[in-house]
Every structure is written in structure tokens, then in C-alpha cells.
């Protein structure tokens, strides 16, 4: 242990190492002023660390433990190893939920990206009304999802559906569509509502990205003879890539872990065919009270979420490196 206040750090060449090792090294070599600054930082960070530690990190550890026990509501369970996960693996409803989640995430994200990109490009070309359009467009994103989803459930009602009425009047359908009645149709209806709710987020964020692209780049491309389609793929798309990527990753995480839309629109039905990981975890863990199995079902999301987060961190890091190389 070095005596506090000795000053050695600045003359030494910094050695490579893990952030933890270099952090500890700096801790040993700190001056009194540095130590004061660190104490101040620690005090400022304490409330956030306590909150997140108590209500995120601790539940996470406890969730892992819970998923390895046969706990049910009102009875402390015993350690059963990976039995809950094995049980889920053999559970046809869980398998269906896993497939649904993948399809739901992939289809909804791609549709939101496509529609959101088209809307962002149109808004970017609009001269007036931009603010009012942007403001009203975001309403599905602001309003509590459960409440707007209730309106959709009413619009998709088997007997009183206004959507059927409109499609019938337009001559697009001859018979009623039972939007939430059959397994395949129900999942696509949920995807439709997800796209309705999530597209504004894509459109507005991509628009913000578009507005940072200088018009001169387009002019240069036009002079080179590129048409609108070519300009999009050679100029807009690559320049917008960092924003697109981050928006997509956010959306993938939220869609993958979605609960509310399925809970309201189908409740996982008909015949448990439209569950997602989260709704199935709720049904097992909360509705039937098998806490251990429920915790396992929701932790089953973890590997995928973890990989998405890792990819996102890697992508952001890479982007920062690129900026440093290019800029300054």
C-alpha cells in the first residue's frame, strides 16, 4: 500500500490492462485532490447505484436462483437444477411461444423499418406542416400502449369490427375476417398493431438522422447522374446506417420482450397459439403461480437479449472509433 498523497502516477507510462486493473492501479497511486474528486463522484453515483442494485441487479441474481428451484406462490422451493428449463424445452406451448417471438420480432421490426424509412424520407421532403405532422404522428408512441391497444381490440372485434366494414365497403373482402380468431391471423394482427405503434419512433428518429445529412452530398450525386433510387442506396442508406442500426436494436429488444399487445389482444390464445416469451412467463409464473418455472420462461429471453446488447455496444464503440479516425 502506498502512503496516501504520494505523487507518482503522472511520470509512469500507462500500462495496458483491464479497466479493473488500471482502476485499482490508479486508486493506489492517487493524490489527495484526486481522491477528493473520486469521493465526490462516489457520493453522486450512490443513489443511482443503490436503486439499480436493489431493483435490477439483486432481482436478476434472485431470478436466476428462482429459475433453478421449484418455488410456487406461498411455498419456498427446493433446488432442482435445470429441471424447469428442461421442462420448458419439452413444452409445446413454450416452443410455439419461442417461434412466435422470433417471427413477431423479425416481421414487426422489418415492417417498422420499411414504413418508418419511407415516412421519414417523405417528411424530409416536405416543406410545410413538418412540425404538426411530426407531433401528431408520435401520439401512438405517447399514449399508454394498453389503452390504444384496447381501441384496436374493439376495431378488430369479430362481430363489430369497423376494419371489416371499411374493407367490405371498399370491395376488398366478401366475408368477415376474424382478425383475432385463428392462430396465424391473430399473430399477424398483433404484428399489425405493433407496427402501428412503433413506426412513429422509427420515422421520427430516422428523420432526425436524415436532417444531419448535408444537401450538398445529394447535389454531388445528382450531378454524377444518380436517380432518386440510386441516391437513396448510395448516399442516404450508408450515411444513415449508424442511426438505423441503433433504432433497430432498440426496437428488437422491446419487440422481443413485448407483453402488452398480446396480453390485451389475444391473451395468448386461441388455444395458447400466440404467446410470446413474456406472456407465457406471466401465465406460468403469475396466473398459475409457478414462480420457478415462470422465472425460467422469462430468463429464456436472456441469451438473445444479451447478444443484441453486446452487438449494440460493439457497434457503438466501433462507430466512436470511426468518428475519431475521421474527425478532428
Amino acid at each position, binding site marked *: 500500500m502506498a502512503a496516501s498523497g504520494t505523487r507518482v502516477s503522472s511520470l509512469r507510462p500507462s500500462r495496458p490492462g483491464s479497466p479493473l486493473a488500471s482502476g485499482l492501479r490508479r486508486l493506489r497511486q492517487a493524490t489527495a485532490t484526486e481522491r477528493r474528486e473520486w469521493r465526490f*463522484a462516489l457520493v453522486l453515483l450512490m443513489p443511482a447505484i443503490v436503486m439499480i442494485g436493489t431493483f435490477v441487479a439483486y432481482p436478476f441474481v*434472485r*431470478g436466476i436462483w428462482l429459475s433453478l428451484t421449484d418455488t410456487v406462490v406461498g411455498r419456498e422451493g427446493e433446488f432442482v437444477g435445470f429441471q424447469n428449463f428442461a421442462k420448458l424445452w419439452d413444452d409445446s406451448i413454450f416452443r410455439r411461444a419461442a417461434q412466435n417471438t422470433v417471427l413477431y420480432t423479425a416481421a414487426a421490426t422489418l415492417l417498422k423499418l420499411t414504413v418508418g424509412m419511407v415516412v421519414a424520407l417523405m417528411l424530409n421532403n416536405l416543406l410545410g406542416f413538418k412540425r404538426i405532422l411530426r407531433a401528431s404522428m408520435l401520439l401512438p408512441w405517447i399514449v*399508454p400502449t394498453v*389503452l390504444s391497444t384496447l381501441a384496436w381490440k374493439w376495431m378488430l372485434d369479430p362481430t363489430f369490427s*369497423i376494419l371489416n366494414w371499411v374493407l367490405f365497403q371498399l370491395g376488398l373482402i366478401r366475408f368477415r375476417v376474424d382478425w383475432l380468431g385463428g392462430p396465424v391471423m391473430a399473430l399477424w394482427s398483433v404484428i399489425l398493431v405493433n407496427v402501428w405503434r412503433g413506426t412513429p419512433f422509427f420515422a421520427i428518429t430516422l428523420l432526425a438522422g436524415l436532417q444531419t445529412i448535408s444537401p450538398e452530398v445529394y447535389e454531388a450525386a445528382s450531378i454524377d447522374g444518380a436517380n432518386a433510387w440510386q441516391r437513396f442506396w448510395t448516399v442516404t442508406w450508408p450515411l444513415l446506417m449508424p442511426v438505423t442500426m441503433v433504432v433497430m436494436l432498440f426496437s428488437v429488444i422491446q419487440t422481443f420482450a413485448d407483453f402488452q399487445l398480446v396480453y390485451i389482444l389475444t391473451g395468448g390464445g386461441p388455444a395458447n397459439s400466440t404467446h410470446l416469451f413474456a406472456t407465457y412467463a406471466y401465465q406460468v409464473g403469475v396466473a398459475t403461480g409457478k*414462480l420457478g418455472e415462470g422465472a425460467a420462461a422469462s430468463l429464456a429471453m436472456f441469451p438473445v437479449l444479451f447478444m443484441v446488447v453486446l452487438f449494440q455496444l460493439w457497434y457503438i464503440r466501433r462507430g466512436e472509433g470511426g468518428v475519431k479516425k475521421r474527425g478532428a
Partner: protein
Amino acid sequence: MAAVAGAWWKRWVFLYLPLGAFVIVTLFPFYYMAVTSLRPDREMYIPWNRPNFAPFWTLKPTLEHFALLFRETLFARWLLNTLIISVLSTGIALFCGLLAAYALARLRFPLGGTLGTSIFVTYLVPQTLLFIPLGEVIRSFRLSDSLWALILTYPTFLIPFCTWLMMGYFRTIPKELEECAQIDGATRVQAMVRIVFPVAMPGILSAAIFAFTHAWNEFIYALVFLSSATNKTIPVGVVSELVRGDTFFWGPLMAGALLGSVPVAFIYSFFVENYVSAMTGAVKG
């Protein structure tokens, strides 16, 4: 602005009409929510393929569904609960987030980068990953079925966002500003509270609006942690009390959905710019 130039009809076909259609689709569910909340029951339940089905308006608007909402359910109480929970959890999140962001953006200390990254990762943890063990934690703290269960857990998904957004904001404020204050004899804390925070007010407002709407929106924690009817929030109350088995009371449901959406839409309408900058800022980081 040259992408859709040329003939006027091109602007209509490629710009105004599709954008108009998109806005109509986006807003129609809210319009339909409002019409349904005013429609009398005997007009409501006419199958869609009957000739007298008039879905887009009502000839005899009524407030009976709103009256029922306040007379026969605890809607006023749910509204109050939602407001209390949203305001307090936003306050806690802002307090923790502001301090943490200041430390991460302004002070140099070991493991600062690692901490910043872990807060960002927490931002990405969805509520549905942890609701079952978190319910157990709530129970062991004896907070089940109390508003505090939500007031204390909502900040977990609001703090990372507030921190992330404010870090970006603090970085845009020149360090010289604080250094001047410190030369004039202010302590570090005084410089932070009296100089930096007021300058960061637009950012703080953005974070507050964003956090408030998120808290108002939350569903699964409220559904799992609260059980008695007097403690519910609007989304949970409406869903659990106005849906009986397979019977949906559509009139009061839509009235409740409308009233539950109005406060947050109202606040949003005053701070659209703040909200948008928070949303895009949160993504760009």
C-alpha cells in the same frame, strides 16, 4: 429538397397522399376511441354488415359511459394513483440520474467508463425479464400491493435513460463555466447546483417529460405488484374492472382509455420539441 421535384401531381402522388393516408391510419384509433366513448349502447352493438351500421359518427352522443366510469368504478382513484406514481418516480429518477450523469460526464475517476456502460446496459433491460423475481423482492420488502412498489421500481428503467440523456447534455456545457464559479469562491457542489443545473434546464425538462410519459405508460409491474382495486393504475384498473371474462364493456372501456390518454397527450403537446429531442438523444447517446 430536390428528391420530389417537377410536376405538381408528382408531389401529390409521392408525398401528400401517402403522408395523408399514413397520418389518418395513425390517428384513426384515437378518433374511434373518442366516438365509441360517446356512442349509446343500443347504437354500439349493431353488427358491421347491417345496413344501419354507422361507424364514423354518432347521432345521439351520450356521456353515460363517462358517468358510469366515475360512479361504478374507482376511475378517479386510479387517475390519482397514476399521477402520484408518475410524478414521484420521475422525481426520484431525475434526482438519481442528474447526479450520476454529472459524475460520469464531468469527473474523472477509476471505473467511470465501466459504470457508464453498465448504466447503458441497464437501460436495455426490458421489464418483462425481471418481473417475477422483482415481485419476490417487493414481497420481501413488504411493499406488495402498495403504491411504493411502483414508485420505487419505476425509477429503475427511468434512471438509466435520464443519466444517459443528461450525460450527453452536460458534455455540451463548457467546463469554463464551472471553473469561473469556483474561482469566484463557489464550492464544487455549489457550482454544480447553481451554475450547471440551471444551464442544463432544457435537458432536464426533456428527461422529465420522457420519464413521466414512460411511468404513465408502464403496465406489467403495475399488473403484477398491485392487487386491490383502490391501488390500481389506469391501464390496469380499466383492463381488470371493465373486462369480465369474455365480456368487454366497450363504452366505459373507451371512455377510460380516452381519459387515461388525455393527460399525457396534453403534457406532451406543450413539450413536443423536448420530447423529440429526448427521444432522438436517447438513441444517439
